[in-house]
C-alpha cells in the first residue's frame, strides 16, 4: 500500500528516539565497551614502510614472552584466490581483502598489518609486538596518483594489467582499469560552442574520521562456534567476510552488532574481526582488539584523492552543448576506487547532448580506500560545479539561472545511459530561488557560492519483523545497524501502519542468527529498503489482526476495518461490537491462531535518486588566507522526511564534513611515504567553533517506490560543499581555488600570485 497522499499521524513528527536515553547516559554498548572473563588483548604489528618485500617474520621471541597466548601471521590464514565480490559497498576482490587484513609477501603502505598478538594485558601485547623480528626489503614507493600512472613508476602488483583497454596490455601497471562514458559526439559539438571553459582540479584523500575507532571482541569456542561483537555498518557483512577469509561456515559465526560510533562508509569492510577470531582460536580465549586513532588513519580506508580535468562548451544563452571530463582516482594499495560513480555523478544534474568522460582507477602506496558518503560524487562534483561557476561568470549569467537552463528533469537521458525518473532537481533549484539566503544582500567583504549535487541512493536486501507482544506492545526487529536514528524512523513507519503512537513500538537491531539477511547500512538505503520491509511486515500484522477480530466477532473479515490501532466493525451492517485494540487482540492471541508476528524480506529496487543544492557565504582573511564560513544553507529533495530532525541532522552533518574536506582535511606524507598527520591534532576535522548553524531545507518530492515516499538522504549532502565554498571564495576574492584543501597557506599563496 502507498501512504503518500494519506494523512499521517506519526510519520513526519519528531519523537524521541528509542535508543536515546541509553546514549545520553553512557549505557549504550559500543564495540569496545564489552569485557569477558579471561579476555585477552589483541594488537596488530603494522609496517613502518610504505612499500617493501617481507623477507622473513620471526615471532619466536614474542611467543616466548610471559603473558602472550597467541601470535598470528598470514601463514595462519587461508591463501584466498582472486574472486570478485559485491558484499560490501563496492566491488571488492576477496584476495585483496584478505591481503589488506594481513600482508603475505609484500607490505603496500605504511600501517599495513603483517602480524598480530594476543596477550593478557595491553602492555604485554605492545612488548610482544616489539619482539617480532621482521626482515624487510624496502622497495621504491609511489604516493601521488599521476606519478603512479607514469610508465617508470614502481609497480605495486605485477599481476595487475589495465582492464578496459584493448588489446589487453602485456605490461603490468598501477592503472587497474579505465572506464569511459560517451553520449553523442562531444569533440564535434565543442566546435558549435560560443564559449568554452576548462580547468584542472585536484582533491586530497580524506578520512571518514568517525570518532569511534574500529574495535571488536571475538570468541572461537572449542566446538568451532564463533561469536563476534563488533561495530560495523553491517554485521552480515562482517559474518560473510570473516567466514570467507577464515574458511568457516556462516552458520558457525554469530555476529552481534554493537552500537556503531559513526561509519560514513568507512565501516563497510573488515580489518580486525578475522584476525581476532584467528587469535582466539589459537589462544583458546576471548580476544578484544581496538585500533588506535593512528591505526584508523593509516590502516583504514579514506576516500580517493583525485586529479581531474573538465571542459564545458556552451552557447551564449547558457545552453551547454558539450562536456568532457578526465578523472584519475587513487584507489590506495588495491584496486577499487569509486571511479564508476565518479564518472557518472559529475554531470548527472544536467541535460547534456554530448558528453565524454574517461576515468582511471589507480593504485599507489596508500591505505586501500573505503566507501565514504556518495563515493566518488563529491570529488567529481567539486570539479564540475567549480567549472559551472566559471562558465556562469564567463557568460555573465547568474549561476542559478545557468543551472536551471541545463537542469536534468524527468525524462532527461543521462550521459551514462538511463533516463531520469521521479527526480526533484528542479524543485530543489526552485527552493534555492525562493530561499531568503539566496536573496539576502551580501555583507561587506563576503562572497556567496552555490553548488549542486546528485547521488543515486540504493535499495537492496533487508529483513524486518514486527511482533505484537502479549500485552499489545510492539517490537520491531531489523538487521540494519542504527548509525543515525534509523530505529526511530523504522519504528515510526510501523507505528503509522498499526495506528499506534511511536512510543508503542520498540525497534531493535537483531544479530545475524536472529533475523534474515540484511545488506549493510550504507548507500542511504535503510529508511528506504528496511523501512519498506518493516512497513510491509506491519501491514501483514494488520491483516492478521483483522482476521482475528473477525473470528472473535464471528463476522467476515471484509466486515472488519482497522483504524487508530484497533479493529472496528465496518459500518452498522457488520454488527455492533466494541473495538478490539492491540492489547485486547493480543490477550486472546492463543485462541485466534497463536503468536502475532510477521517477517518480511525484500530486495528493494528503485531507490530514487537524490539532489541537493548548497548556498554558502564566506569571508576571507587576505593576509592569513583563513576562510570563515559565515552562513550555510543546504537544500535537498528527501522524498519524505520520516523523522525530520534526523533527516536535517544527516544534511547538517554531511555539510560539515564537506566543510572540513574543503578547507583543511588532507593526508600529509613525508618523503618515505609515511603519513605525518595521523591524529585529530593535525588531521583537522571541523570543531564546533569552525562552523555556523547549518540550515537544512527539506524539499519533498515523493519517491513512488517507497510506501511513504522516502528517498535516501545521508549521502547527497556531502556532494555540493567543496564547490559551494570554492565558488564563495571566488565571489569574495576573485580567486579560483582548484586544489583541495583550500587551506590558509594555499589561499594566501593565491593572493600573492594574483599580486
Amino acid at each position: 500500500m502507498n501512504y503518500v497522499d494519506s494523512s499521517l499521524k506519526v510519520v513526519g513528527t519528531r519523537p524521541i528516539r528509542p535508543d536515546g536515553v541509553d546514549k545520553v547516559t553512557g549505557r549504550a554498548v559500543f564495540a569496545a565497551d564489552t569485557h569477558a572473563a579471561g579476555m585477552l588483548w589483541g594488537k596488530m604489528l603494522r609496517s613502518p614502510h610504505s612499500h617493501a618485500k617481507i623477507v622473513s617474520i620471526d615471532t619466536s621471541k614474542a611467543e616466548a614472552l610471559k603473558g602472550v597466548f597467541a601470535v598470528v601471521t598470514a601463514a595462519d590464514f587461508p591463501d584466498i584466490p582472486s574472486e570478485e565480490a559485491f558484499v560490501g559497498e563496492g566491488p571488492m576482490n576477496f584476495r585483496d581483502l584478505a591481503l589488506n587484513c594481513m600482508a603475505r609477501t609484500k607490505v603496500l603502505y605504511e600501517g599495513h598489518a603483517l602480524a598480530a598478538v594476543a596477550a593478557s594485558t595491553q602492555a604485554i601485547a605492545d612488548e610482544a609486538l616489539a619482539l617480532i623480528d621482521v626482515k624487510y626489503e624496502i622497495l621504491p614507493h609511489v604516493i601521488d596518483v599521476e606519478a603512479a600512472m607514469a610508465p617508470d613508476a614502481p609497480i605495486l602488483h605485477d599481476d595487475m594489467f589495465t582492464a578496459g583497454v584493448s588489446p589487453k596490455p602485456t605490461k603490468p601497471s598501477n592503472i587497474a582499469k579505465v572506464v569511459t562514458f560517451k553520449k553523442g559526439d562531444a569533440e564535434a559539438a565543442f566546435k558549435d560552442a560560443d564559449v568554452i571553459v576548462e580547468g584542472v582540479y585536484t582533491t586530497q584523500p580524506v578520512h571518514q574520521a568517525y570518532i569511534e575507532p574500529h574495535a571488536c571482541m571475538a570468541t572461537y569456542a572449542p566446538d568451532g562456534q564463533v561469536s563476534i561483537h563488533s561495530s560495523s555498518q553491517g554485521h552480515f557483512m562482517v559474518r560473510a567476510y570473516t567466514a570467507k577469509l577464515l574458511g568457516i561456515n556462516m552458520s558457525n559465526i554469530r555476529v552481534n552488532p554493537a552500537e556503531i560510533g559513526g561509519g560514513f562508509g568507512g565501516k563497510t569492510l573488515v580489518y580486525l574481526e578475522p584476525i581476532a577470531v584467528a587469535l582466539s582460536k589459537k589462544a583458546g580465549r576471548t580476544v578484544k582488539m581496538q585500533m588506535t586513532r593512528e591505526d584508523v588513519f593509516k590502516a583504514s580506508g579514506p576516500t580517493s584523492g583525485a586529479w581531474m580535468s573538465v571542459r564545458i562548451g556552451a552557447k551564449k544563452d547558457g545552453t551547454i552543448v558539450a562536456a568532457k571530463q578526465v578523472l584519475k582516482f587513487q584507489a590506495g594499495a588495491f584496486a577499487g576506487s569509486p571511479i564508476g560513480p565518479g564518472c557518472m555523478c559529475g554531470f548527472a544534474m544536467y541535460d547534456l547532448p554530448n558528453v565524454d568522460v574517461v576515468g582511471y582507477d589507480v593504485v599507489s602506496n596508500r591505505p586501500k580506500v573505503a566507501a565514504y558518503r556518495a563515493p566518488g560524487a563529491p570529488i567529481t562534483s567539486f570539479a564540475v560545479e567549480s567549472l559551472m561557476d566559471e562558465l556562469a561568470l564567463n557568460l555573465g549569467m547568474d549561476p542559478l539561472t545557468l543551472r536551471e537552463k541545463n537542469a536534468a528533469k524527468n525524462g532527461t537521458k543521462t550521459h551514462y545511459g538511463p533516463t531520469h525518473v521521479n527526480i526533484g532537481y528542479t524543485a530543489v533549484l526552485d527552493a534555492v530561488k525562493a530561499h531568503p539566503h539566496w536573496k539576502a544582500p551580501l555583507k561587506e567583504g563576503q562572497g556567496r557560492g552555490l553548488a549542486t549535487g546528485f547521488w543515486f541512493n540504493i535499495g537492496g536486501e533487508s529483513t524486518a519483523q514486527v511482533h505484537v507482544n502479549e500485552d499489545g506492545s510492539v517490537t520491531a526487529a531489523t538487521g540494519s545497524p542504527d548509525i543515525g536514528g534509523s530505529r526511530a524512523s523504522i519504528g515510526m513507519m510501523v507505528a503509522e501502519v498499526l495506528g499506534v503512537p511511536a512510543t508503542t513500538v520498540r525497534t531493535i537491531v537483531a544479530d545475524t542468527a536472529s533475523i534474515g539477511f540484511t545488506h549493510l547500512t550504507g548507500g542511504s538505503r535503510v529508511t528506504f529498503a528496511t523501512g519498506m520491509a518493516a512497513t510491509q511486515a506491519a501491514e501483514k500484522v494488520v491483516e492478521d489482526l483483522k482476521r482475528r477480530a473477525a473470528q472473535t466477532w464471528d463476522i467476515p473479515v471484509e466486515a472488519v476495518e482497522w483504524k487508530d490501532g484497533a479493529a472496528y466493525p465496518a459500518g452498522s451492517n457488520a454488527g455492533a461490537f466494541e473495538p478490539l485494540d492491540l492489547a485486547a487482540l493480543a490477550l486472546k492471541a492463543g485462541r485466534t491462531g497463536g503468536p502475532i508476528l510477521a517477517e518480511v524480506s525484500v530486495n528493494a529496487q528503485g531507490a530514487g535518486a537524490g539532489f541537493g543544492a548548497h548556498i554558502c557565504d564566506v569571508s576571507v582573511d587576505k593576509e592569513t588566507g583563513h576562510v570563515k564560513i559565515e552562513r550555510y544553507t543546504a537544500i535537498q529533495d528527501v522524498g519524505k522526511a520520516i523523522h525530520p530532525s534526523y533527516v536535517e541532522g544527516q544534511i547538517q552533518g554531511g555539510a560539515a564534513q564537506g566543510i572540513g574536506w574543503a578547507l583543511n582535511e588532507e593526508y600529509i606524507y613525508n618523503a618515505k611515504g609515511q603519513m605525518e598527520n595521523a591524529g585529530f591534532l593535525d588531521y583537522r576535522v571541523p570543531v564546533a567553533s569552525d562552523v555556523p548553524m547549518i540550515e537544512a531545507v527539506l524539499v519533498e518530492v515523493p519517491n513512488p517506490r517507497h510506501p511513504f515516499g522516502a528517498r535516501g538522504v545521508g549521502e547527497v549532502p556531502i556532494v555540493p560543499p567543496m564547490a559551494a565554498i570554492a565558488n564563495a571564495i571566488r565571489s569574495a576574492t576573485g580567486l579560483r581555488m582548484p586544489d583541495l584543501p583550500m587551506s590558509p597557506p594555499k589561499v594566501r599563496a593565491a593572493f600573492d600570485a594574483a599580486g
Partner: protein
Amino acid sequence: MPTVVLASGSAGQQFTGGQTEFEVEATNFRRLVLELERRFPGLGKQIEESMAIAIDGEIFQDAYAAELKPNSEIYLIPKIGGG
C-alpha cells in the same frame, strides 16, 4: 524485442568485442543475463559480479525477476554502492 545497451563505462565490452547494443529476446533480467552469456561467454559472469541493470530509468541490482517490456530502455551499468 528490447534493445540492451552496455553502458560504455561498464567493464563488459572486453567480452563483446566492443559491441554495445544488442537486441535480446528476454522478458526478465535473468533471461537477459543467460542469453548474453550464451552469446558472449564471460559477459554473464561480469554482469553478475559488478553490474546493475537500469530498466526505464530505475536501477535494479541483483533482481533476476525484474520485468523487461518489449519497448523497455535497458542499460547495463556499473553496480552502485554507497557510504
